[in-house]
């Protein structure tokens, strides 16, 4: 069964501190993983995807197949990073819909 696990419901860090949002997945095939973000009063939007291997707003995420993880990292958190972050796995069996984790609320305090 496909599953995405985000173990932390809430993560609070100080501005300038490193941040890591954890995501683990279970998937029998070759996974395609995403991080989506929802800022306050805004709609859910794509942050980054593992295929692109890019850095967006200073965030990076590396797919580790051995540990079945796709953790989101940023070396220096900013207050504007405060948001809800969802890890998602593409489901090739359901029209390429997304299996989402429960989300982690990141709060960056000054």
């Amino acid at each position, binding site marked *: 069964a496909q599953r*995405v696990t985000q173990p932390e*419901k809430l993560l609070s860090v100080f501005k300038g501190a490193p941040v890591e949002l954890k995501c683990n997945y279970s998937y029998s095939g070759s996974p*395609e993983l995403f991080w989506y973000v929802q800022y306050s009063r805004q*709609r*859910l*939007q*794509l942050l980054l*995807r593992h*295929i*692109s291997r*890019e850095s967006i707003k200073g965030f990076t995420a590396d797919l580790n197949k051995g540990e079945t993880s796709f953790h989101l990292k940023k070396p220096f958190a900013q207050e504007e990073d405060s948001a809800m972050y*969802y890890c998602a796995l*593409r*489901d090739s069996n*359901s*029209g*390429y*819909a*997304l*299996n*989402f*984790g*429960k*989300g982690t609320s990141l709060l960056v305090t000054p």
Partner: protein
Amino acid sequence: EADIYQTPRYLVIGTGKKITLECSQTMGHDKMYWYQQDPGMELHLIHYSYGVNSTEKGDLSSESTVSRIRTEHFPLTLESARPSHTSQYLCASSQPGTGRSYNEQFFGPGTRLTVL
């Protein structure tokens, strides 16, 4: 401007009423999806569509139904609303593309439904 729209944004309704949640996209996407999200929980896929006249049920069993008569329109209907249907409903669309937009899903603003 290309976008995905959902109406109403908020709906409070009594038990037994029939309701339709509207979703329209002007992005020209073939694939569309409905997700349901309870507070503090993950999004669950309830319906999806590959294109016109295509509708499929998602992983989460739902008493709602959908239709796809036009590419841009994917409404969700509840024939008889119940308190257990209280939730947020998110509509999304996607299209195979190239580069960064490849299979990216774009989400609407959501409809928050409360059934009394």
